[in-house]
């Protein structure tokens, strides 16, 4: 049977194409474009979260559990070590200054408030950025290069709901636990320095710590730590999902994810400290 021929490949029918090879945008517009993509990505994550909370598609329980295992218990030793060293460092530096005016007894105030409000959260965030944010970026970038994410999209599965939400939620879930452990160990390490190097008694250190610490310090520290967890998760997943389709892109995405997370953590720490302090907290 003769077939009606398909439309010929007539260029006159084609809609006009834009110029062949557009010039690469300058650094300024490129950075602006990157920032816009990041904002758009954050919007996608929030929308996916809202859809899930309203009963829509969300993360698989198995995926969340796998990520929880990866983020939590396996990060604990290194978080404890870094928080302990940071607490020790603050105690030594603070003690050296306070000893000049004979106020070593206040080492506990500096260490406890500093570690609980700022240092435990920042150190835990930094460790998670290097350990988990980079892993997220590498995993998702490898999936992008291997067309696994395209395979999800073709099925109509939202990669943000399926891959990003479980990772960010796992980080948010484990962060408070890591933070609390980190803070306790940091304050305990400060006790070592105070007692060992500056002659403060254990009872005085504990008493002064409890006197200095307020519930406000705790919730501020916990809130900040949770913000850092979200930033680490977003940076890792954003860089992984937008990595490109080559093997080299995986390494580049990993580096960008860590750098971005660190910058975001420091910026968030600064902004929250300035804002909360100026508000009287």
């Amino acid at each position, binding site marked *: 049977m003769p*077939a009606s021929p398909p439309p010929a490949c007539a260029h006159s029918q084609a809609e006009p194409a834009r110029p*062949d090879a557009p010039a690469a945008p300058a650094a300024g517009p490129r950075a602006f474009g990157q920032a816009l993509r990041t904002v758009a990505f954050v919007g996608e994550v929030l929308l996916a979260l809202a859809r899930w909370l309203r009963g829509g598609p969300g993360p698989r329980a198995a995926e969340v559990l796998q990520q929880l295992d990866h983020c939590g218990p396996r990060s604990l030793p290194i978080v404890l070590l870094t928080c302990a060293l940071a607490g020790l460092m603050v105690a030594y530096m603070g003690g050296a200054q306070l000893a000049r005016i004979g106020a070593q007894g206040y080492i506990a105030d500096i260490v406890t408030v500093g570690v609980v409000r700022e240092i435990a959260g920042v150190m835990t965030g930094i460790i998670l950025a290097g350990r988990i944010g980079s892993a997220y970026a590498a995993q998702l970038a490898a999936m992008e290069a291997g067309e696994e994410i395209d*395979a999800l999209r073709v099925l109509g599965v939202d990669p943000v709901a399926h891959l990003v939400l479980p990772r960010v939620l796992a980080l948010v879930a484990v962060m408070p636990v890591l933070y609390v452990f980190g803070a306790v160990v940091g304050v305990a390490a400060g006790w070592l320095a105070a007692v060992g190097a500056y002659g403060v008694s254990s009872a005085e250190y504990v008493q002064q710590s409890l006197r200095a610490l307020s519930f406000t310090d705790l919730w501020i520290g916990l809130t900040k730590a949770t913000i850092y967890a979200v930033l680490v998760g977003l940076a890792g997943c954003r860089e992984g999902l937008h990595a490109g389709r080559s093997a080299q892109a995986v390494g580049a995405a990993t580096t960008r994810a860590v750098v971005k997370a660190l910058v975001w953590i420091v910026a968030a720490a600064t902004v929250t400290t300035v804002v909360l302090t100026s508000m009287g907290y």
Partner: protein
Amino acid sequence: MPPPLTQTRAAPADAPALLQARGLAIEAGGRIVQQGLDFDVRRGEVLAIVGPSGCGKTTLLRHLVGLAVPRAGRVLLEGQDLHAGDEAALAALRRRFGVMFQAGALWTSMTVGENLMLPLRLFTPLDGAARERRARAKLALVGLESAFGLMPAGLSGGMRKRAALARALTLEPELLFLDEPGSGLDPVNSARLDELVLDLRHHLGTTVVMVTHEVPSVLAVADRMLYLDEQERTMTALAPPALLLEQGPPAVRRFLRRSAGAPAGEAA
């Protein structure tokens, strides 16, 4: 530029168009690789997209399945523009597709069986046992019954491809896209895959669009062949492959004969 050859073979020649490309211009890496693409994929046919490396075959496939937005023109599924609606509308259209990607694209954190059952869990009312039965049946179709519990990392390249094909078939799509299905397969499995494609077409009426370098496969299974020319950056032939082999534009005949192993001079 020679006009495209657009004769057709008898098989599904009178079938209505299922998928249409209209004035399509596609880009990769910010550069237009093909433009002015106008063709129909008819319901029930096997259409092979062929051309030299770098001509944009895989890029075209990504546009046809809605993974990339064309620089110009439209892709229509039964008259519906893939990109006219929102993401949900596109997702609904895509569920009529099955796609086998070039490297398989199995989800590496799941077993092969879970890879096949995930689409069933998401988009069918089947219970767990029924999902497993369906997944095992699809694996048997591609000769991978024993791979159900294996992780993708434990499969060879060819096995991964066959598992990916089984996954593409789980939702029993009406339109199946295959990206280089035969590459990495031994001749026996490659021939088996060709037979499977023909079976799907004959028994289920599945429409197949395959991107391939394997000219023997094209000659064995394709009703029509679309040739993308790298120099012209557009399609220069759309016709049954056997016809193109004899009467196609010189560049197409050269490509087919070289790829099929015949002396290139015969094409001149």
